[in-house]
């Protein structure tokens, strides 16, 4: 019982820590994070060399379509990660019934 409650406390401390970092990140920064680190490192070099980024495909994926791909990709990969995680680590209840 003591071990279980200790693990639960640890889990909540971790969740609150991560949430706190992100809340602090939002509250204490003026910037909108509108640029990948590329903006600070690669773009100045490319501008100096007179080179511009180009599109990968003949058509452009941006706006809500890009959002759609990000959400779909994240959901599929998240589902796959969860599925395989559960296969590898079935959890105490499932292990007891095996």
């Amino acid at each position: 019982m003591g071990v279980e409650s200790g693990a639960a406390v640890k889990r909540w401390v971790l969740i609150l820590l991560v949430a706190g970092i992100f809340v602090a990140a939002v509250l204490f920064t003026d910037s909108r994070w509108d640029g990948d680190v590329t903006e600070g490192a690669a773009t100045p070099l490319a501008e100096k060399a007179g080179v511009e980024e180009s599109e990968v495909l003949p058509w452009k994926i941006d706006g809500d379509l890009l959002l759609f791909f990000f959400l779909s990709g994240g959901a599929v990969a998240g589902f796959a990660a969860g599925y395989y995680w559960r296969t590898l680590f079935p959890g105490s209840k499932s292990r007891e019934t095996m």
Partner: protein
Amino acid sequence: MHIPEGLIPAQQAAAWYVPAVSFVGVGLVGLKRRLVVKPELRPLIGLMGAFVFLISLIPLPVPGLGTVSHPCGTPMAAILLGPFTATVLGSVALFLQSLFFAHGGITSWGANVIAMAVGGSFSAYGVFRVSRRAGLGIGVAAGMAGLIGDLVTYGITSFQLALALHGDEAVLNVWGAAFASFLPTQVPLAIAEALFTAGVVVFIANQRAELLEGAVVRP
């Protein structure tokens, strides 16, 4: 970051493809062989593939700087599955990201594979093995591998950018400047990658220690 489409001249892009395809080819052959001998690795490979894809795509904000960047994920995959298999997983993630997520490019795929998949995997794997032989605990060794693997990735990316975009300046000077401009954003991300890598590896070592045998199996 992944180098976007169009920033690397065609000849250099083609030149980066040669070692990238070689590493991926060796990795694929080894992976096929390993799955025949040890099919129970399949779920771990699936898990690591999903992790590498997600981790190297997610933009994490760095408080105070207003910039975002992403960890690599390949160091963790290299520790658990070996560097060649991690290279294959990283290369697949990079291909999908360049096609559907405006992240990276097709012509710059070879350069990105060398930086993130090969550089991140092999440096992390080397650091992990050396650290373990030096007697460090598994968590510390995995954390150091995550940290170094992340920074090596960005060191290689800086070099590739410098080589492509140095103009009249010396490549080494541009390399140094490019890497220095990555560091404020990337060092916190590398620390996060170290903590995450250490956490996952320690968890697996505690729950399913036999899975860590993958770290010492050759491709």
